[in-house]
């Protein structure tokens, strides 16, 4: 059982784009034991998709 999240405020297309871009970035570094600068990159993706 997990906490239920209500994200009505972010449309499903945006969430799908975040998902796809995240997986693309992960794929680039899949072979690395330690990821390089990946967390800031993923955070940036979310910030770009949900701008101010």
């Amino acid at each position, binding site marked *: 059982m*997990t906490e*239920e999240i209500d994200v009505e*405020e972010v449309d499903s297309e945006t*969430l799908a784009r*975040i998902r796809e871009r*995240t*997986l693309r970035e992960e*794929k680039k570094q899949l072979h690395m034991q330690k*990821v390089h600068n990946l967390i800031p990159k993923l955070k940036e993706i979310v910030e770009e998709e*949900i701008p101010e």
Partner: protein
Amino acid sequence: MRLHRLHLTNFRQFRTGSITFAQGGDNNVTVIHGQNGSGKTTLRNALTWVLYGDVNFSLRPNHLGSQGAFAEVEPGDSIRVEVTLEFEDEDIDYELSRWVEYQKQTASDYQGEIIDEDVSLTFTKSDGTRGTRNNPQDSIEQILPHRLSSLFFFDGEYITQLSEKRSDDEIREAIQNIMGLKIIERSIDHLETVEARFEDELQDAASSELKSLMETRSELRSTKEDHEQALESAEETRDTLISEIGEIKRKLEQIDDSAGLEEDRTQLENELQQVETRIEEINDEIEDTISTKGHLPFAMPAVEATAKDLDKLRDQGAIPSEVSNQFVDRLLDDEECICGRPLEPGTEAYTSVASYKSEAVTEGFDQAAIRIISHLTQLDSERDDYFETIDELLQQRSELRDSEQEIAEELSEISAKLEKIDVVDPETGETPAELESAREKKADQLEDAKADIVRHEIKIEELDADLKEINTQIDDARQDKKEAELARKRMRATESVRQQLESSFDQLQTRVRNWSNKLVDDTFAEIATKEYKAEITDEFELRIKDQIQDEYLEVEKSRGERQIASLTFIGSLVQIARERYESSSDSEHFSGGIYPIVMDSPFGALDSDHRRQVSAVVPRMAEQVVVLVTDSQWRGPVANELGGRAGKQYRLAFDSGEGMGNYPRTTIEDETPKQEI
């Protein structure tokens, strides 16, 4: 990835030599055979060295350079050790070279000191474009990840180990990597960190009320995490104990003095299991009956009072009866009144009699009252049924509990008897009494572990409910700062994406397990001589089972069977990766790949029959297969089966270099039959 050519210079006993690999189609196998110590393992190591800089030699692991080459140069001079691999991937031709420059230090130095080393990867695209990869190691990792290489470049020893329990983690990891589960798993982890960063931003910008709520949430999450870890640990303890108890059970079954009692215990335990299952079912039935009909006993006093009131009202005429309306209708239909007057439609008499008929609303009320009275009578009967059902279920449960108690007593007696058998078993050196005592202790620990599991599960469920509640409160809290609102929005979006990925992970995991299970079993059925079944379990473990009556039980595997199981598994992985490569879509983010298989001495532990069967399947395991075998393994069934599929065949001619001024040396001789023109 398709291997084209391997070239070695001064690499261990190879002064210079090349292997051109057979390509796909009917002749996709490259056979390299030679006597023991001729350099088969060195060739496999040359491949892993050029690709990853890794070697695994049991003898003189740091001596990469050829002794002969060192002998020919003076101290201070250098020799170059180099391996070049030409291959193709995704329609691009690559040339990968790794080299080390050694300087000879003294006259008797045959190891040298590294003075320079490098690796380079050049490529030629199909349109003729040429170039060099800036980071060759990263590019190689993309083409054939190092973590997967042991599955495709392996020796006989490795494949024997692979089907043993200690390799379960490796199998799980391999399947998850190949099938793209890893990428999702890593994304989930990383997005969790991103969420935490947005949460930090939110806390910085949030109101004091919100901050306090979020702190509470952090504490709840941390507590939940503690319980999840404790749950995982308790589950591991439970699994270990179950396995240890199973092991003791097997020993007791094998000892003559305790075998009979152990058999009785197994039977009783099965009976107990059935009784417990039935008790659970009855409890469910009782719960179901109470939840659907449990209101009846409580409602009946009110129902009976209502029925009486309705009867009374009918007696008093307050509720017109159904008969009165029917009676009026009949008089009107007959067109004659009870007093004998004719009742013609439109006459005053007709209208007068018709007016006795109840109005529509009253009619509905009348009918409803009748229906209610009838239903009330029915409810009374349902209440009786309810009591009867509950009584019956309680009676059954009570009887089952008696049986449960009896079985428990019998089990206790068996345990007491076993604890008295003090005869030492010559094979294990243990007595049934000692084994039983250890079993009892572990059984107690198992009960504790199970109780812990339930306790943590309940706690986690409670914490989930608390977290849900606090999330609502956080949502309700006023977000007066724009920055806080934005951070919150981003955090929740990240959380939502993570949850979507978790759900995808679960779905894909099930799909992958079913797929790999089918492939492994199909391939295994083709090779195995016995009627065994290969299975990838829910935990992604490779198991071989035998059908005993209606159920499959895990079997102890011989070395040969273990090798076959592992080869089956590796072949299935290669097939899965290839199928995934051929049917990959952008949305899956893991396109699979075409991987070659390089097998070093894969037939060692197999008998002649198994060698022939494995040889028949090997060419189908991958699009490109390289088999390194000893001369003795190559002869007979292996050569008969594989010879026809060998597109390239080499012999390693080894000269041990005994005598002054000579050094071990292997030359590679091409034995591929010339094509007839």
